[in-house]
Structures are given as structure tokens and as C-alpha cells.
């Protein structure tokens, strides 16, 4: 124990004796770790912001979408969730509320006109229960209400981008816009939610009543809808999922042994899938940038070799006083590992700082997050690099012949 403490003290002393050299030596390490941490921090921050958007579904929320396994798709089958399925779920599944359909009519491709101006937007039909957990709410006027739905009113709730794009008045309520050749009265304006990672404008959209959308989609024999619903009791999600599965399988006339042609997604599952995808992306990118750490390791090895030569006489003295090979080996190995770790720590702080700076300068990045595993991994890896690249110089020092080392000038 005393020997280990002494080896540590000697290693620290040697680093302190040449601070500038130590700083330059670990520069490669610092840059490598900083790069890894910055990349991972930004990716994780990015992931966090997307996950946050999924959370708006709520812990009780389930989403039912049509889905075909590849094999079934190759057999030429088509999967869809129909308005009949919506009715079936409403009538035959207990313990759920706010069973709301979403019928996407167009993704950024619907032409919308106001006066002489036109633009492209996304149009979806839905009902009053759709905006969940306060994520979307009307800042002017109202959302689609039950009465709109039952009477197929041609009304529209619009996102704020449309006011700008179509040069609508600041208070567009009561004005008419044209969609799919039909006039819609603007009854509400949604709150601004901003862009999805700076790319997708989430305020460029129009909601119309579900039944209105169904009749507009008349050209399609059976529209494919998405169903959102809330389970009354979050702990009963599994049985409710089983019940929905049973109902839909019967609706779709699936035989036992046939795969489901739909998927029931919960917020938790979506989040988990996304998080794991982002974690592997972080790991892969981190590993690529981590190669630069090897370059840092070579720098440390080089300086340690010089250092051993410089301190040959000192090593001889220590050996004459009774230091064993192991004592010398440990001392130099610790020095290399400490240097490397020092670089790792500085790099960690620097990388986090860079992440924060990028978030500050580029609005597309929501935040910089450094997860614990990254810190553990990068410090572990730096220590390992120090160990691997320190072993050769340390072994060289330990193997020195005491007489020749003492004679060394």
C-alpha cells in the first residue's frame, strides 16, 4: 500500500515537474475526448427532444396503425385501419376513452388557397379529442368540436405557418380557405410548436373534422386511418392491447397463425425504440471519433519514452535503494495513465462546453446531454489507452540495469 501510494506520488511529482510538457502531451487526448463527448452530447440532446415529442402521447396513450410484415406485403396484401375498425373498437373494447381517429389526407402536398395566394400543407381529419396533453391547443377560436364531426362541417383549424404563407389576416377566424376544391371556414388557429429538429415545420398543417375528411377521401374505397386512444388505467394496458388485437383480428378476418396486419404502439415503446436507436448511433459515432484517442495515446507513449531516457539515472538511484522492477514499472505506468486520464477529464469538460456552445449557436439542436455511460466509457477508454501505450516505456524503465542506469550521464 505504501509502495502504491509512493508510486502514485512519484508519478504526480513527475507530471508536476514538467507541466507544460504534460499539457502538450495530452493535447491529442483532450481533443479526441472532447470530440467524442461533443458528438455524443449533441446526439443525445437531439434524441431527448424527439422523445419529448413522443411523450405528448401520454403514459396511457396507445396508437394503432396499419402494418404489414414484409412477407405478407410480398404476397400482395394490403393493410389498413378503416373507419369500421374505429367503430368496432369504440363499441367492443372496454376500459378506453377518447378513441380518436386521425385520417391523414396529405403530407405537405395539399394545395391550399386564400385569395390569389396558394401554398402546400398537410391535411388531416380528426375529432375533438385529438389534441392531447396540452401539446396542441387553439390560441384563437376553437378546435374541431363534436358538432363539426356529426354534421361534416367544412371548417378548418390551421397552424400558424399558413397565416404567414397565405397572407391571412392576423386574426383569420371566419375567413375562407380552399382545400381540394372545397371552401373551408377557418375556426381556430393552433399554438406554435416550432420545427422538428429544424427541418420539419410542425406549424404548417390543417385539421378538419374526421367525417369531412372521410367524405373528401371518397375516391379511396377505404381510407387508412390512425387511431389514438387512452387506456383508463395505465396498469391495464396489456389486457387492453390484447382485447384490441382480438377485435381487429376478427375485423380483418385473420386466421389463427396469420400475422397481425396492424401495430399497437405505446408511448413507452416508441420512446424505447428511439432511445436505443440513438444510443447505438452515439456509440458508433463516438467510436469513430474515438480513434483519434489512439493518436493521443501515441503522443503519450512518445513523451514517456523520452522521459524514461531522461530519468535513467533517477531510476538507477531508485534501484540502488531497493526499488524492484515492479516498483519502477508501476510508477511509470501510473504516470502514463494519469496523464491520459488528465487529458480525458479536460476533454470531457471541453467537449461538454463545445456541445453547449453549438446548442447556443444552432437552434436546430435542442440541448447537449452527456449521459453517465459516455463519461464512464471515455474515461475508461482513456485510462486503457494510457495503460496500453504506457506499458512499453514503463517496461523499458523497469528493465534498466542498475549499474548502467547509475552511470548514465
Amino acid at each position: 500500500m505504501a509502495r502504491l501510494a509512493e508510486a502514485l506520488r512519484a508519478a504526480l511529482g513527475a507530471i508536476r515537474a514538467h507541466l507544460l510538457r504534460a499539457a502538450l502531451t495530452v493535447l491529442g487526448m483532450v481533443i479526441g475526448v472532447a470530440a467524442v463527448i461533443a458528438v455524443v452530447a449533441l446526439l443525445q440532446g437531439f434524441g431527448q427532444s424527439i422523445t419529448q415529442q413522443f411523450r405528448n402521447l401520454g403514459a396511457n396513450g396507445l396508437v394503432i396503425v396499419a402494418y404489414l410484415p414484409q412477407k405478407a406485403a410480398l404476397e400482395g396484401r394490403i393493410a389498413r385501419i378503416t373507419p369500421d375498425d374505429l367503430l368496432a373498437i369504440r363499441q367492443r373494447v372496454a376500459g378506453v376513452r377518447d378513441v380518436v381517429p386521425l385520417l391523414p389526407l396529405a403530407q405537405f402536398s395539399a394545395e391550399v388557397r386564400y385569395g390569389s395566394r396558394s401554398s402546400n400543407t398537410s391535411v388531416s381529419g380528426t375529432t375533438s379529442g385529438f389534441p392531447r396533453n396540452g401539446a396542441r391547443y387553439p390560441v384563437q377560436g376553437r378546435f374541431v368540436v363534436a358538432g363539426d364531426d356529426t354534421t361534416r362541417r367544412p371548417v378548418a383549424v390551421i397552424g400558424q405557418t399558413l397565416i404567414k404563407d397565405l397572407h391571412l389576416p392576423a386574426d383569420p377566424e371566419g375567413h375562407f380557405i380552399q382545400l381540394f376544391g372545397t371552401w373551408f371556414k377557418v375556426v381556430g388557429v393552433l399554438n406554435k410548436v416550432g420545427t422538428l429538429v429544424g427541418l420539419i415545420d410542425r406549424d404548417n398543417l390543417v385539421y378538419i373534422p374526421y367525417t369531412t375528411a372521410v367524405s373528401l377521401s371518397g375516391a379511396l374505397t377505404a381510407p387508412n386511418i390512425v387511431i389514438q386512444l387512452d387506456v383508463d388505467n395505465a396498469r391495464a394496458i396489456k389486457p387492453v392491447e390484447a382485447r384490441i388485437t382480438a377485435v381487429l383480428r376478427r375485423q380483418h378476418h385473420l386466421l389463427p397463425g396469420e400475422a397481425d396486419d396492424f401495430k399497437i404502439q405505446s408511448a413507452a415503446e416508441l420512446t424505447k425504440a428511439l432511445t436505443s436507436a440513438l444510443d447505438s448511433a452515439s456509440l458508433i459515432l463516438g467510436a469513430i471519433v474515438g480513434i483519434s484517442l489512439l493518436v493521443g495515446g501515441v503522443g503519450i507513449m512518445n513523451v514517456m519514452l523520452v522521459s524514461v531516457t531522461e530519468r535513467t539515472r533517477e531510476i538507477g538511484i531508485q534501484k540502488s535503494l531497493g526499488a524492484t522492477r515492479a516498483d519502477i514499472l508501476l510508477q511509470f505506468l501510473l504516470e502514463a495513465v494519469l496523464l491520459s486520464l488528465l487529458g480525458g477529464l479536460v476533454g470531457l469538460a471541453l467537449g461538454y462546453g463545445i456541445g453547449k456552445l453549438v446548442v447556443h449557436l444552432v437552434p436546430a439542436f435542442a440541448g447537449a446531454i452527456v449521459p453517465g455511460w459516455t463519461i464512464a466509457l471515455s474515461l475508461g477508454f482513456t485510462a486503457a489507452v494510457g495503460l496500453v501505450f504506457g506499458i512499453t516505456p514503463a517496461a523499458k524503465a523497469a528493465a534498466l540495469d542498475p549499474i548502467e542506469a547509475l552511470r548514465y550521464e
Partner: protein
Amino acid sequence: MSVALATDTAPLLELRGIGKRYRMGETDVDALRGVDLAIARNEYVAFIGPSGSGKTTLMNIVGCLDRPSSGSYLLNGQRVADLDDNALARIRNREIGFVFQNFNLLGRADALHNVMQPLVYRGIKLRERRQLATAALTGVGLGDRLDHRPNQLSGGQRQRVAIARALVGKPSILLADEPTGNLDSTTAREIMAMFATLHRAGNTIILVTHDAEVAAHAERTVAIRDGQVIGDTRHGRKGTAHGAAG
């Protein structure tokens, strides 16, 4: 100490037929050829010889810095001729105290830490190391220079730090290689006086020198030339007490 009593009659170190052969390029050079030598506890011996005589090689073997190519070496009843590196390091740490011509202090460490260094390899705790080293430095008259680095000390003071370092672990033998070689004559006299005091206190001292005047301080002179012992003279005891060793 009971061991010391049991072996009191036996020599402290005994060399029998020690040879050392170096390979210099294509040819073999015999630095030592069949050296037989026995040194008792509390002897004060000088190895004297010109440079290249083999006296330094002999000192390195006695000090367990080097291994003989042939012959046997018993130190304190231990066979050391065929020990491995770790065992030799252990003997250097416990049985030998070195004093070098150029002091060989660690430049980055102060006097106290230089003297504490050999105790590290014995696994002694920091507090005790500090106590022992402070006592050793006080013993050589440097109690007020504990935190001075070698470059803040005079040559004589540096050599006294080195002596304190050699003695702090209470070794069996104090091995001094030209200890006054880098000192002026006044300081050299002080250091030689210190060796005489240490000898009187019961220490076994081996002095390696080319200088007959320095060798004259010892009570026994072993003359070495061409790797062989060519003379072994006793000048009679200069020290007084022998009992201090017990």
C-alpha cells in the same frame, strides 16, 4: 538481534572465488578473477586500487547491484550469488547502504524525501518514514535542512544527506564509493570524520577509493589490481568499542 549473536563469529560477508567476466565486443574481459575475501561485522575496510583494477566491480557485487559470473557470495549467512532481481533489490534495500561519489540524490525531492525513499520499498508507513528520516538527518547534523532540495545544499551537505539515506534503514554494510571524490579537502575531512564516528558506533563500512590517504582512515586495506586481491593489510583498530553492534 539473536541472529546477529549466533553469527557473530562468522564473517558478515564472505566471497569465495568470485569472478566477473564482461563481454566487450568480440573479446571477454575478466574484471575479477577469483577474489576471496571475508569481512567481519564492524570492520572498516578500504578497497584500494587504480581505475580499471576491478574495485568498483567488486563493490557492485558486494552491494548486490551486480551478480558474479562465478564463485559464491554469502552475506549475513545468505547465499546471494544466484538470487533473482527482486531478491537482490530486497537485499540492497535492507542490507546495503550506498554512498556515491556524486551523491546520487533525487533532484526533485527535498532532503527528507530523499532519506525516506529507501523506506518506501520496505512498505513502511508515511508517518514512520518521516520520523525515521528526520532522525537520520538530525544524526548527520542536517535537522534544520529537511525541506532543502539537493541544489540548495552544499557538496558536503549533499553527501551527508546521502549518508543519512544510506543509514536510515539500518543496513548491515555501508558501501561508500569515492565518497570524498567531489568534495574539497576541508569537507572531505568532515565526511571522513563522520565515517570514523559511524564505525565507532558499530557500523560496518566498506570504502572504495584510489586514494591511499583516504584509505588510511580504514582499519584494513584490501589492495586490488587486475581483478585480484594483491594485498590485505590491517592497521589495527582505530575505533574503540565493538560492543555497540550488539
